[in-house]
C-alpha cells in the first residue's frame, strides 16, 4: 500500500480540521443551529460540541489497543461490520463534502458568477479541492496552516466590527423555545464536527494517539469558541425574522460592516477565505474517503482512487443541484440522524471493547 500522507504536526492538523469544520459550520450550515429559533443558536452550538466531544472520547477509547478508528471498529465489530461502518462514515464524509461543494457553488453563482455555466463552476471547485487531495495530506495540512490564522483574524473582525449594529434585545427571549429543547436541537448539529472524529482515522500520519488527542482537543476548543462568537455576533446583528430569509448570514454580516463613512470590505477577504477553506475542507474529506476506501478494500494505491472520489463528489453535488427533492430528503436525514452514523458504531464498538477488556484478565486468570 502506498499511502503518501507524510507526517503532520499538531498545528497543521489543528488548522486542517479547524478550516474544514469552520468553513462548513459558519459558511454553509449556520441554519443547523437555528432550526427552531435563531436568537439562541449561540448556545445551541455548545450542545453540538458536547456531543462531538463524547464521540471523540469514545474514538480515543477505541484507540487504546493501538491502530486507528478503522482497525478499532474492525477489531470490535468484526472485519465485515467494521468495514461496513467505516465506509458508512466515509459516505457521510463524502455527502458532507458534496454538500459543501454544492453550497459553495450556490454562493459562487449568487454573489460572484451569476452567468457562468454551473458545470464549469463545479469543475473549478473540484479542481481546487482535487489537486491538493491528490498531492497528499501533508500538502493539504501545510496549506491549511497558512490560511487558518487568517481565517481566525477575519472571523474576529466579523465579531468586533459590527458592534454598532448590536442590539442585545435580539437575543431575547433568552431560552428560545425552551432551554432544554434548544440544547437538544443542537445535538444533531454535532454531525458537523465529523471532521474531528475523522482525526481518529489518521493516527499514522498524526504520529500516534497522543497527538490525535491533543489535536482533537484543540480543534474542538478553537472551533467551539469561533463558532459561538460568530453565532453570537450574527444573533446580535440580525433578528430572527431577517435571519430566516438570508442565504448566508455570515456573508451578510460581513457586508454590513461599516466604519464611520465607509464600508469595510471584510466581505472580499471572507469570500477569498471561504473559497480557500471550502476547497481545503473538501480536499481533506476527499483524501480521507479515498484513504479509508483503500484500506477497507485492500487497494494498494490511493492516487487513482482520489480522482474517482472527486468525480463522485462532483456527481453528488450536481445531484443536489438537479434534484432538490433528493437533497431535501438526504439533507433532512443527515441533519437529524447523521450523528447516529458516527455515534452508533463508535459507541457499539466501545461497548464491545469495554466488555472485552473486562473479560481479558479473567481469561488470563483461567489460562493460568
Amino acid at each position, binding site marked *: 500500500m502506498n499511502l503518501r500522507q507524510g507526517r503532520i504536526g499538531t498545528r497543521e492538523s489543528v488548522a486542517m480540521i479547524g478550516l474544514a469544520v469552520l468553513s462548513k459550520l459558519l459558511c454553509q450550515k449556520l441554519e443547523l443551529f437555528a432550526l427552531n*429559533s435563531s436568537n439562541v443558536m449561540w448556545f445551541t452550538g455548545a450542545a453540538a460540541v458536547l456531543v462531538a466531544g463524547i464521540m471523540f472520547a469514545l474514538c480515543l477509547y477505541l484507540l487504546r489497543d493501538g491502530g486507528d478508528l478503522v482497525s478499532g471498529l474492525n477489531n470490535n465489530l468484526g472485519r465485515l461490520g467494521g468495514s461496513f461502518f467505516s465506509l458508512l462514515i466515509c459516505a457521510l464524509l463524502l455527502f458532507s463534502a458534496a454538500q459543501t461543494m454544492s453550497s459553495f457553488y450556490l454562493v*459562487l453563482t*449568487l*454573489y*460572484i*458568477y*451569476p*452567468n*457562468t455555466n454551473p458545470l*464549469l463552476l463545479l469543475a*473549478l471547485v473540484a*479542481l*481546487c479541492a482535487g*489537486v*491538493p487531495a*491528490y*498531492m497528499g495530506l501533508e500538502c493539504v495540512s501545510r496549506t491549511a496552516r497558512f490560511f487558518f490564522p487568517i481565517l481566525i483574524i477575519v472571523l474576529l473582525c466579523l465579531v468586533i466590527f459590527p458592534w454598532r*449594529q448590536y*442590539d442585545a*434585545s435580539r437575543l*431575547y*427571549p*433568552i*431560552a*428560545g*423555545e*425552551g*432551554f432544554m429543547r434548544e440544547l437538544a436541537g443542537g445535538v444533531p448539529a454535532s454531525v458537523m464536527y465529523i471532521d474531528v472524529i475523522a482525526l481518529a482515522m489518521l493516527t499514522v500520519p498524526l504520529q500516534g494517539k497522543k497527538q490525535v488527542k491533543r489535536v482533537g482537543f484543540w480543534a474542538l476548543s478553537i472551533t467551539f469558541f469561533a463558532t459561538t462568537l460568530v453565532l453570537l455576533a450574527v444573533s446580535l446583528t*440580525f*433578528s*430572527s*425574522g*431577517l435571519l430566516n*430569509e438570508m442565504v448566508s448570514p455570515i456573508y*451578510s454580516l460581513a*457586508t*454590513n460592516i*461599516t466604519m*464611520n*463613512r*465607509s*464600508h469595510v470590505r471584510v466581505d472580499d477577504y471572507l469570500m*477569498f477565505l471561504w*473559497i480557500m477553506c471550502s476547497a481545503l475542507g473538501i480536499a481533506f474529506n476527499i483524501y480521507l474517503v479515498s484513504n479509508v476506501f483503500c484500506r477497507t478494500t485492500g487497494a494498494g494505491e490511493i492516487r487513482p482512487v482520489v480522482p474517482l472520489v472527486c468525480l463522485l463528489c462532483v456527481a453528488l453535488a450536481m445531484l443536489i443541484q438537479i434534484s432538490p427533492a433528493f437533497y431535501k430528503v438526504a439533507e433532512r436525514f443527515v441533519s437529524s440522524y447523521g450523528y447516529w452514523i458516527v455515534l452508533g458504531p463508535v459507541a457499539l464498538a466501545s461497548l464491545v471493547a469495554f466488555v472485552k477488556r473486562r473479560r481479558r484478565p479473567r481469561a488470563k486468570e483461567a489460562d493460568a
Partner: protein
Amino acid sequence: MKKLFSYVALFLSIGAALLSCGCQDARNIDDEAHVLALGIDTGKERRFKFSVQIPSQTASTATKGGFMIHSAEADSIYEAIDLINTSLPWRLNFTHLNLIAFSEELARQGYIEEFMRPSPRHLGFRTTCSVIITRDNASAFLDGMHGQNDINLAKQQRTWVLEPMKSALFPECTYMNLAESLTSPIYCALLPVGAVNINAEAEQKRKNETEETFSHRPEAPRWGVGEAVSEPPSERTELVAGETIRESVNTSEIMGSAILEHGKLVAELDASQTLVMMLARNQFNQGWYFYSDEGHSVADLKLARPRRVTVISQNPLKIRIEVFLKGDIEIGLGTDVFKDENRIARIESAVTQSIHGEMERLFGQCRELGVDAFELGKGVILNFATNKEWQSYNWIEKYKASELEISVDFRLNRYNVSNESAQTGKETKPLEGANQGSTTNEGKNEMPGGGASKDNIGGMEGGR
C-alpha cells in the same frame, strides 16, 4: 516524472485559483454604472416609478452637477432595472447604493412592504444603506440633492448618514432596520423625512434668473433654527423638511421623521419631536436643545447613559422608562450663570420638564395609534424566557392599554462652579432632585422649532 507531475498539479491549482478570482464574468468598471441613490414613487401607468441616480463619467449639458437621474415605471424593481439598462451604455450596479428614498404617497398607501416582499437583496446593495421618506416625489428629491455646482454626492449622502449622531434633527434608519420592523412587533421603523426646500428652491430659481452667486449675497438668512428661537412660541414654525429657512445650491434637505407600522406611514414628527423620540428609542447621541432663560438660549445635550426600561407591573402593564442626559449651556461672555446653583437647577428643571412633557405627549399619541414607536417591547421582552410565553402575551394589545412612567435625568456640567469652588474651598455637588421630570418649569423653554408648543403629532393629514 514525479517532479513534472507536481509542477503540473501546482500550475493547475494556481490556474484554478486565478479563475476563481474573477477572470470569468469579469466586471469592468467601464461597463458598470454605480447607483448612488434609488428613488421609488407611485407610477402613473404602472405600480412604481423607479429613479436611479448615477454619477456621470463626463460632465455635459445632459448631466446636472456630474450626476444623472434615470427613471422607469414598472411593477417591480427588476423590471425597471432592465428597462433602464436598455437605454444606457452601462449596466446598473447597486453595490455602492447609499440611499433609498420612498415617496410619502407610496409610504402612506403601504406599498413599502410590497416593494420589500420580493426581497431586493439580489440587487447586491448593502442592507446598511439609508432609507428615507420624501414629502415630494422621490425623484425630485434626488434631483435636488445636487445643484449646478459639482458636489461630491456620495460624500454628501454619507455625511447625512452620520448627521443624526451629531444633531438629532432626524434619525438614522437603514434598510435592515426597516426590514426588521416588518418582521417583528418589537421593532418600529422611524425614518428620516426628506423634501425639496421650497425657500431654497425659490431662491435658486431667482438666483438663476439674476445670475448672482451665493457669495455675493451678504443678506442671506441664517439657518432657520436660530431665527425661530427668538420668536415667541406661538409664532414659531415647525422645523420640518422642505420648510426650513436656508439658502443653498442643494435644495433637498432632511428634517424630522416618519413613523411606519408594517411599512405604512402612520405619523410624521417635526425635528423637536424627533429629538425626543430618538431619546426614548435609545437612538439619541447628541443634539442641541433651545430654550430661553435670561439670555442663555442653547443647551448642548449629550447622552449620559442608555435608556432603561423597567416593567413595574405586567397586569395591567405599567412600564417605567428612564433617560439619562448630560449637557452644557452656551453662555455669553462675562456671565456668571455657573455661580448661581439655583439658576442652574432652574435650567435643568426647565429642560427636563419640557422633554418629559413632550415624551408623555408622544407616548399617548403613539399608544392611540397602536404603534410602539418608543420600542418599549425591546425592554419588556427581557422579562420573558421563551418565545411561547412572549407570543401568548400579545404584546401590542397589552401596549395599547399600558401606562408609562417617564423619568428624565438631566445634569448640566458645572465647570465654572468647580473652578470657583476650588478658589473658595467650597465643595460642589450636583443638585439632587432638581432635575427630575416632576419639577416645575420656571424658565421659558421650548424645543427646537417650537415642538413643545405643538399638541399633536403632525399626522399624514397635516398640511404643509
